[in-house]
């Protein structure tokens, strides 16, 4: 990869990172770069987002989830 391309890539990542911060996604640079790479490989962004969401939702306790999901 020539230095020009590397620089562009770095800039792009930086820009995306800024945007991500504005949107308050809570992703760090590394994760973001992986996600970009996956996007570039043609993966569906919706499902990528779903993965991120699923894997990050440890914090809420299970009990509350169940209460909410109770059908009326």
């Amino acid at each position, binding site marked *: *990869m*020539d230095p*020009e*391309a*590397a*620089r*562009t*890539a770095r*800039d*792009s990542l930086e*820009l*995306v990172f*800024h*945007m*991500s911060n*504005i*949107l*308050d*996604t809570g992703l*760090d640079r*590394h*994760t973001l770069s*992986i*996600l*970009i790479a*996956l*996007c*570039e*490989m*043609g*993966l*569906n*962004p*919706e*499902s*990528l*987002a*779903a*993965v*991120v*969401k*699923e*894997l*990050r*939702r*440890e*914090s*809420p*306790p*299970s*009990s*509350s*989830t*169940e*209460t*909410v*999901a*109770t*059908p*009326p």
Partner: protein
Amino acid sequence: MDDDDHRVVDLVKELVHRLLCTSSQNPNPPSFTQQEYNQALKYSLRILSSRMTPSIAPDDSAMAESIKRRLATAGKSSEALTFADLYAKFSHKNGPGSVRNKWAVLYLLKTISEDRKVRKNQFSNRISNGFLDSALAGGLPTLFEGDEISGGSGEFGNSSVGRSTDGFVDLRGSSENVRNLRGFSILENEKNEVSLSGLTANMKKLKVLGDASSSLRTREHVEKRYNGGILVVSKDPENIRDMAYRDFVDLIKEENEVTEVILVRDVLYACQGIDGKYVKFDEKADAYVLPELIKVPRATRIMVRKLCELGWLFRKVKAYITESLDRFPAEDVGTVGQAFCAALQDELSDYYKLLAVLEAQAMNPIPLVSENASSGNYLSLRRLSVWFSEPLVKMRLMAVLVDSCKVLKGGAMAGAIHMHAQHGDPLVNDFMKRSLRRVCSPLFEMVRTWVLEGELEDIFAEFFVLSQPVKAESLWREGYRLHAAMLPSFISQSLAQRILRTGKSINFLRVCCEDRGWADAATEAAAAAGTSTGRGGLGYGKTDALESLVTEAARRIDKHLLDVMYKQYKFKEHCLAIKRYLLLGQGDFVQYLMDIVGPELSEAANTISSFKLAGLLESAIRSSNAQYDDPDILERLRVKMMPHNTGDRGWDVFSLEYDTSVPLNTVFTESVMSRYLRIFNFLWKLRRVEHALIGVWKNMKPNCVTSRFFVKLPDAVKLHLILTSRKCQVLWDEMNHFVSNLQYYIMFEVLEVSWSNLVKELEAAKDLDDLLAAHEKYLYSIIEKSLLGERSQNLNKILFTLFDLILRFRSQADRLYEGINELQSRTTDSSSQDKARLQRPSNKKFSESGSWLGEGRKDLTRRAGEFLRNMGQDIDAIAKEYSSVFDGFISQLPIQQHVDLKFLMFRLDFTEFYSQLRPSTGGKLLL
């Protein structure tokens, strides 16, 4: 292909690792086990394989736009701006190393951020619901309660290669999935099941949790498989609560015949001016109402009615727009009216957008108290009232405007809206300014074309300049005027005047002067006023730009106009010519003319041929210095015979005329020329009187012929004769004093002074109005000072009586000297033998008296005595009348207001002869 897959798998692995590392909020981050890791990995691969294509069409800018809007609506406008900036930079990154699939990245970010937000909201909801007391007390409980923590941080963190075998198998399964994901074959259920079998209960819980906030599709997908798990957890106390809620819902349903969703929809319809299923427009009440028959709570009914005010207002505005547009081709709505309609329609289209969004939201079911909001975007009547608060204000404004502008048009309409714009509320102010900008654009366009091109594109009579079809000479004065009703209040009166004059100048140049040079001046002005004044550049609120444009245009065009007037049409030369010929400034010419037309004019008016007079005028010009004047000017000089009555002499009807053509007749209008004519008549009379007095003097001045003749007369006759001729001379002297002083005053104090003022003012004139005013002032001052004005009518009458007296005196004096001459010739005839004696010196007259004794001499002496007595009496009468009339003149003169008349007084009474003669008048004089 395999490479690609491996890469994807590697990346996913890495991603899962990182996510697990960073997301668990336990004090020691890498607290997940190998098993957990594997499960998570499998799960994520499954998710990735589950959806082939995104659910929306890829479009970078639309995506960026939607993110921006979302940020903006969330009240983070500065961040929205930053984002827009970043996006712009991002989208410009092309070529090697850049992100090709920009849309995917954006979409990813957006979805993640939305998910996070939803989750946060949910937490806060739950916390406020009070369900989580225990959870709050104990901090954040861990999700994986049942898990034995078997894996340490070191075990996994070191390398991603060291894995247990089943993990590896799973991974391979996943990699199959990835292949599927990439679109080579349809997802295989079996394989899924294989990989699923490895998932633990905890993992299931994880899914359930995700489910609450994930999009609809995910939920369906997961629910299919994990429904059982949730049902098991439901416990009795919740059921009781549920029962209570159910009862409540039933109660509400019973009370409301119509559900809120339907009411919301009806209200939305009503707000578009359409009758809903229940909410209908009631002509009697003049409002949208819910019919009484339908059973709803009073509060709901009132709320519906309140919300429907918007519909009522909308109906009104819409009706106005349709009406105006419908009658447009037939009647004159006017461009401003059309612009107003367009502005209203713009506002309405914003309103329609809002309604469309709201309608979409109205599709979402309204959750009852027991149901937690699955989507935040449902619409209840209350929410609707919040949504409607701003459009309602705007719609009210529009309705007010429609009401107040219905009958108005053009500038008046713009003015009316401008009055509404004087409002402290920034919302109202903004709204009004926005619509004013639209409404005024045709108006400003009219100003622009008028000022720069002189065109009046105003078929609907909306502009504040009105044109009237007039003849060329009165184009300037009457052709255009301001229409006060159409002048919007944001254009000041003086600016409007300037606008009027600029356009008028252009039209004047075009029509009267047939000049094309103004176009250059206008272009120059447009360039000088700057780019903001181009077509459509002017607008409401930019009064400065308008003013500078008008000023520039006015300055240049007026200057050009004056140039044309001065240089091409020689205005000053014509003024001078009028002064020289009509105001008798050219002395030799006047003298000569008086000499040669005098005999002709003494005839009765109806016998005089104007052609002959024209010939005489011509010869007067030829023989005076006037011949060197410009032939163009001389051609304009004509003889004019005024309409005459029986008994009028030629003197009464003769006058000179100066013919002016377009465009000069804008200045020298008929009324101006008639005033010049009055001045001419006065001056001509004065000249004639002076001429007459001089003519008398020629006869009466003492010479040796008469004095020799006197000597021969008998004493009685001689005495008589000397007495009479002396009386005559004294009177002549008095008259001459008066006439020559008056003449001097008129020529030097009046004409020359006024002329020099005029010249000065013409130099300073900036536009045609200035020029007209200067000329007007010139003429006015001449008329006032030469006693021709309104206020000095009395005095003028006396003056003319004096002139008449002088003329009568002239004829008497002529008769007297004719008589004397006759006497002289008779005497000479009868005493031819005494011819030699005539040469004798006069001191011997006593001795000669005897020689008069001859035949008929007595008779002659008697007749001469009689004649002289009669003449003496006549002259006495004239002198008496003259002195009394002159007395009146002198006494009335100081009453005149004009200060310059003091000079005349001073001249006439220089020796204080008159003031001493009449002490009463003198006292007045001294005052």
